[in-house]
């Protein structure tokens, strides 16, 4: 039994920044226009009808007060400084060596429209990263424009549009086939790109049947988008047959490699038959996700699809690197510029620091650690593994359920997540919609966390199970050791109460106060 931390978050009762400061307070000065400028052009230069006359209602604080305020906010953010086994997102160490390199002016103060002669270093890194991802996937070309995994899924849908348009069949190939358990970004981006989504249900074994796939694909199928393993941690052993069936119907096959960590260096998307795949550089490849981006969905595809990629594509000609914009069949832009370049550099750094042996070892550790965790979680009364009839081992993460203990105590997965933070453990990932098991949670140890970290995490889960039985109200009202108490959810769907800005909050507070006075 490990010893759980006696944790209490910093509790600054920190005001909203709009409440800080004093009239006339200053945090930054800008120089006045030089005399030669004033005398040459004057200073009141905005056309009268467009000149701003009101003062924006911003805080007026000193430089130190801004620093202190935001440091307080960082201190009230657990931010993975406990133990986070946040499944599907693959928590990693984010190298500060790489972070500091990207903050150098040679990257931070560089513009994407500079002449390529002045960008040879960053172009080389992108080109080399492309090469390493080609080796990991078997694909022929990677690009990095997509600002996250969902954006890479959207890239796939748009590349498929361009591919079928080029074949003159876009009006006919109108459907995208996926699994009900695929990440929501796959059906959502395909729908936003204009495709009709066909969701295949799961069988007892955890994945859709080949018969369901055969029935779903046809001459109308533009593409399939599928992950493997899925978020249950179950590897679909029929995936090669999937690809064969889909391709027989003429569909393009996209491998959502969000769950790559357990199969790094072991599988090649291209060898399995896929036409395209996506890697999350902000997850698997060690770039920080930063609470939700800037991120990179690296999109790779076969030579056949490369013609349709968004531009520019980084190419090497002789010993020079260049940006290829001249791609007449390109789908157009998915996002401006070349992508979140510093994140690509950090992912390059991760891949170089791990090397082939390190990457394969990382996959081994991820899967062995998860199986170790499964064994220990199975020993805790009240927890149930998803798909209990599946005897094969899970991959790098496992979907679990609090169903039995929730039924016994009324304590569910949100309550557990809230309570975990009281022990300095980062709240867990539950599940994407739809919830296939009751009160789900999805831990993933990855290669970062030590066996001691994993043991501590499991011990805290076991302890909260005990608390759920002995003092359910305490768990239900958790957290108790955090910067704030549990937030009330009643405002989130109520137009009279939600307030997405401070000015909206003040307006609604005043309206409510007036209402109270009126009632009195």
């Amino acid at each position, binding site marked *: 039994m490990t010893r759980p931390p006696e944790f209490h978050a910093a509790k600054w009762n920190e005001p909203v*920044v709009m409440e*800080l400061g004093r009239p006339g307070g200053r*945090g*930054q000065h800008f*120089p006045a226009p030089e005399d030669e*400028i004033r005398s040459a052009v004057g200073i009141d230069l*905005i056309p009268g*009808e467009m000149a701003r006359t*009101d003062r924006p209602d*911003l*805080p007026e604080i000193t430089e130190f007060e801004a620093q202190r305020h935001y440091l307080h906010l960082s201190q009230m*953010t657990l931010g993975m400084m406990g133990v986070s086994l946040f499944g599907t997102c693959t*928590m990693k160490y984010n190298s500060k*060596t790489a*972070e500091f390199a*990207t*903050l150098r*002016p040679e990257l931070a103060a560089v*513009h994407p*429209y*500079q002449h390529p002669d*002045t960008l040879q270093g960053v172009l*080389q*890194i992108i080109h080399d990263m492309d090469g390493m991802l080609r*080796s990991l996937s078997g694909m022929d070309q990677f690009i990095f424009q997509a600002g996250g995994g*969902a954006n890479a899924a959207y890239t796939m849908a*748009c590349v498929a549009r361009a591919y079928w*348009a080029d074949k003159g069949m876009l009006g006919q190939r109108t459907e995208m086939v996926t699994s009900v358990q695929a990440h*929501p970004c796959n059906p*959502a981006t395909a729908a936003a*790109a204009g495709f009709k989504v066909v969701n295949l249900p799961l069988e007892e074994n955890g994945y859709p049947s080949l018969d369901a796939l055969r029935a779903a694909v046809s001459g109308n199928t533009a593409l399939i988008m599928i992950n493997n393993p899925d978020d249950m941690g179950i590897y679909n052993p029929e995936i*090669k047959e999937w690809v064969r069936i889909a391709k027989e119907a003429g569909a393009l096959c996209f491998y959502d490699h969000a769950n790559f960590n357990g*199969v790094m260096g*072991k*599988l090649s998307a291209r060898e399995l038959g896929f036409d395209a795949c996506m890697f999350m550089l902000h997850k698997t490849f060690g770039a920080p996700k930063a*609470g*939700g*981006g*800037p991120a990179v969905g690296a999109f790779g595809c076969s030579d056949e699809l490369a013609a349709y990629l968004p531009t520019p594509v980084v190419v090497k000609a002789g010993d020079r690197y260049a940006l290829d914009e001249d791609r007449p069949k390109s789908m157009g832009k998915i*996002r*401006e*510029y070349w992508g979140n*370049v510093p994140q690509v*550099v950090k992912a390059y750094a991760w891949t170089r*620091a791990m*090397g082939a042996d390190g990457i394969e*070892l990382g996959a081994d*550790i991820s899967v*062995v650690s998860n*199986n170790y965790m499964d*064994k220990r979680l199975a020993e805790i009364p009240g927890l149930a593994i998803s798909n209990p009839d599946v005897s094969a081992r899970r991959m790098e993460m496992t979907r679990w359920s609090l169903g039995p203990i929730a039924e016994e105590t009324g304590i569910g997965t949100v309550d557990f997540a*809230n309570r975990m933070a009281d022990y300095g453990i*980062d709240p867990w990932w539950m599940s994407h919609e739809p919830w296939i098991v009751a009160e789900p949670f999805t831990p993933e140890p990855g290669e970062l966390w030590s*066996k001691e970290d994993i043991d501590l995490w499991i011990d805290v889960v076991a302890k909260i199970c005990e608390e759920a039985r002995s003092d359910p109200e305490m768990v239900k009202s958790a957290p108790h050791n955090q910067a*704030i*108490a549990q937030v009330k959810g009643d405002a989130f*769907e109520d137009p009279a109460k*939600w307030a*997405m*800005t401070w000015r909206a909050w003040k307006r609604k507070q005043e309206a409510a106060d007036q209402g109270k006075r009126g009632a009195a």
Partner: protein
Amino acid sequence: MAGERRAHPWMANSAPGIIEGMLKEIGAASVDEVFAQIPNDHFRSTPLDLPPALTSEIELRRDLVGKLKRNASCEDNLSFIGAGVWQHHVPAIVDEIVGRTEFATNVWGSYQSDHGRNQAWFEFNSQLGALLNLDVVQLPVYSWGCAIGHAIRMAARITGRAKVLVPALSDPERLSVIRTYCQPSEMDGHIEVVTIAADPTTGRLDANDLAARLGEDVAAVYFENPAYLGTIESGAAEIARLARAAGAETIVGVDPASLGVIKAPGDYGADIVTGPVQPLGVHMHCGGGAGGFIASRDEERYVRAYNGFLVSVVETREPGQLGFGLACPHQNSYGMRENGNDWTGNSTYLWAIAGAVYMSLLGPEGFRELGTLIVARARYAAKLLGDIDGVRIVWPDTTFKEFVVNFDGTGRTVSEINDALRARGIFGGKDISDEAGGLGRSALYCVTEVHSAADIRRLADTLTEVLQ
């Protein structure tokens, strides 16, 4: 040590004996046994072919820095490139805060455990709302172009119409993204993109052309203020009035750096407002500083049409205490998959924190000074360049920080001129000679608060020299 594997600095369980210990606990004889669920013929047949590992920080740093030093930066050169990525000053405090590991790290957390980050996000939205004079701001999406794309799709959902009017003089990069979002004409969800002509004498939207193209099928009119080519759209209120009369939404794109001196879009009839996040304390990062915001009035029909994350201030179980969480979470793709509004996912939320710090440092007076300084220096640069023989400023008196410089009278191409400038340590403006608008041999120059009067004189002197 020869032959024995060293534990990797980033993998605790790579230390000797740990894997073996866990295998023993789970009753597996080998690592291979743990992968037995993968059929043999699925494993890759070709070995990984990666360059040698750099497990030593010394080697890794040398590789990274060695490569990056082959770049030439806008710090070591004098750059006048803008067009969607701009060189603005980034206060040191911003770098400190966005570099905090609690913020930069991977985790999402909960409203309580990661309360500070949620508050910082709300403060970004709140301060931006104060600059825009609007009550709802969503956490930023991938880029300005993506923000416009989502805003157009919002307008289409709200109005049930499927046509958008955009300026003919649009940034080709953003316009390409917009066309992607609006889908090809073969798709059922296609939104037709129609361009509105520019008044050639001012660069502003041609009001007659706009009026002629407005109709009952138009979901939205989109324009920018300042526009792609730097011009200030002084007819903004009239455009919004015309759009409203036709039952269309007015979508505006604004540069937040201008909002200390240019009227807030909420005050001239904008319904949905978009813009870039990068001017608010984010380095250029070779384009990796991009991010785009979307804002609107606090009306339910708009709020219900957003695609992403709306952070609301809420009460907690402790009386008088405030916390923050996601409003309307079920309308996005996490809640409704393909039936949600477009899609959402990881975006550029770290830049929301950068923006929160930046706006709090500037305050109302900082934004006023910033805008005053930028417009004065940009006009000065336009004046000095316009005085050079053969050089003409296309719209000299109606720009914010960018302006179009025409070189037709010099007999030289922009590419030739920029090569000569670069040899002298200056990055000339973006070459727009081949872009829509028929502006001839022209470049889009950008001047901000980082350019001193001396820098501007150096540009003018060097340009004079290379044109001789």
